[in-house]
């Protein structure tokens, strides 16, 4: 995306119908308020980062958003371009994924004893139809569908750079490749919005650089991305917009420039490697 259109987006953030619009999201765990009245928006085609110190509630936020936790209060609205708005609150995780949100996990959750290709093929599950009888009788429709699943999954693997490993068990991949495989698996669900939970964690600088490029490519394909990340360099270079959380509350939002200079953010991080960025 060109610099001009990004500028346009930034100027018009408030006016456009956002892809994802979250208002008043609150989550209580037996008396402890993990998320407190959170508002957050993601526009179509944006890379949005969610940052904050450890324990700020970022992953909890993802879990609420993807239906793994049931939020105590709040509205989660998804408006795909040119289509009706749908509410995501209270939906089961699989329904959320069907609506077009796909995620990765902070502590990698691949299917370790399945091959790389199969891991990606699982991502196609919610976009395919074959039932038990189809599986037993292998009618033409099922066979065709199965072929398409394999082809599409392989093409995703190619894009992500894991094609050569497609017959390996997921557990045998190196760490960085596992993280990429999680992204590939999420992409296979045809998402509108990709939720990445610390994708660069544990990666070396080379891998992080490749990840940066990968995420940009994905965005250029028309997906929006919401990203939790601790690597400030990556966040600053990638993001169009940043939200900062601390103790379950949003403490700041803005473009990378604004966040870099926000005193509240600096205070929250206590001068933690913000200067590196």
């Amino acid at each position: 995306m060109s610099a001009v259109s990004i500028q346009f987006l930034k100027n018009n953030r408030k006016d456009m119908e956002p892809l994802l619009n979250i208002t008043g999201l609150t989550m209580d765990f037996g008396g402890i308020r993990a998320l407190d009245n959170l508002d957050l928006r993601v526009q179509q085609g944006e890379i949005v980062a969610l940052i904050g110190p450890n324990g700020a509630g970022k992953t909890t936020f993802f879990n609420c958003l993807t239906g793994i936790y049931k939020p105590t209060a709040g509205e989660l609205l998804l408006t795909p371009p040119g289509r009706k708005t749908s509410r995501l609150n209270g939906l089961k995780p699989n329904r959320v994924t069907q609506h077009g949100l796909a995620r990765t996990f902070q502590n990698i959750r691949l299917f370790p004893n399945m091959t790389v290709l199969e891991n990606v093929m699982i991502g196609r599950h919610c976009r395919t139809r074959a039932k038990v009888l189809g599986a037993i009788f292998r009618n033409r429709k099922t066979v065709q569908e199965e072929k398409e699943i394999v082809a599409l999954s392989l093409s995703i693997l190619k894009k992500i750079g894991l094609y050569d490993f497609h017959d390996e068990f997921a557990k045998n991949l190196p760490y960085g490749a596992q993280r990429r495989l999680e992204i590939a698996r999420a992409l296979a669900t045809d998402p509108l919005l990709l939720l990445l939970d610390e994708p660069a964690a544990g990666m070396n600088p080379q891998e992080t650089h490749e990840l940066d490029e990968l995420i940009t490519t994905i965005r250029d394909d028309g997906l929006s991305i919401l990203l939790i990340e601790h690597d400030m360099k990556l966040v600053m270079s990638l993001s169009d917009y940043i939200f900062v959380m601390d103790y379950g509350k949003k403490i700041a939002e803005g473009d990378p420039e604004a966040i870099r200079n926000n005193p509240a953010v600096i205070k929250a991080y206590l001068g933690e490697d913000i200067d590196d960025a």
Partner: protein
Amino acid sequence: MDYFIELFFSGLTRGSIYALIALGYTMVYGIIGLINFAHGEIYMIGAFTALIVSTVLSIFGFPLPAIIILTLLASAIWAAAYGYTVEKIAYQPLRNAPRLSPLISAIGMSMFLQNYVLLAQTPDFLPFPALIPDFDFMEPYAATIGSSDLVILVTTAVVMLLLTWLIKFTRTGKAMRATAQDRKMAMLVGINVDNVISITFIIGSALAAIGGLLIAAHIGQINFYIGFIAGIKAFTAAVLGGIGSIPGAVLGSFILGLTEAFATGYVSSDYEDVFAFSLLVLILIFRPAGLLGKATIEKV
């Protein structure tokens, strides 16, 4: 009213036995999250050891008080030894395995121990010596509550108090609670988690053995199979009260014992076990955390 009171005591007796077994389930579950399927077998082994020891002692002509004390000690020691060994062999190697592996291992252990006793001893019911005499002072109440019922109730109460003291106030108890809360954290602060787990198994098994001894003396007969049903009932009780919670196990046991007694008394005992199993299924479906347990949220 008399009938009600009679049934009430009958329920209490049952409940006490369930409680002694249920504690073992709940303690182990609290600490390593495992349904120790073989626990009912430990109870059975406790009863068998008691039978063997007391018969040998009485053949050798020991006086009754000595027999009682030695039998109690022996059955608790051996049951604890079995509990400890079972944990070391069947569960410890599986500490980091998928959740179902130790459960399958436990089922295997249960089958193994049952058949071990069957083969080593006998499949038939064996009469258990009358270790609990009929007290004279109980005579006026004999129609309502028997001497053995009284002994069971009192022993259970004493054991519960001791256990509460142990868990609340001793170092071991604190280590157990810490391990139950967060095993990794406990390890970090220098608690020897393996030891704590072993101690849990030892205590749970000894309690089950006391239960086994009491029930055998009360009902008068045992065989290798008594552990299975009693074990499942006690497990039901533990789940009812909230598995992992010690007061929960006791509460659940008394509720189960009393409902069984009243259901038999006022309805029918034909479906006694169906009733217990249905209760188990229903609690797990509608309130898996039980009465006193806390709902846990899986970390993602």
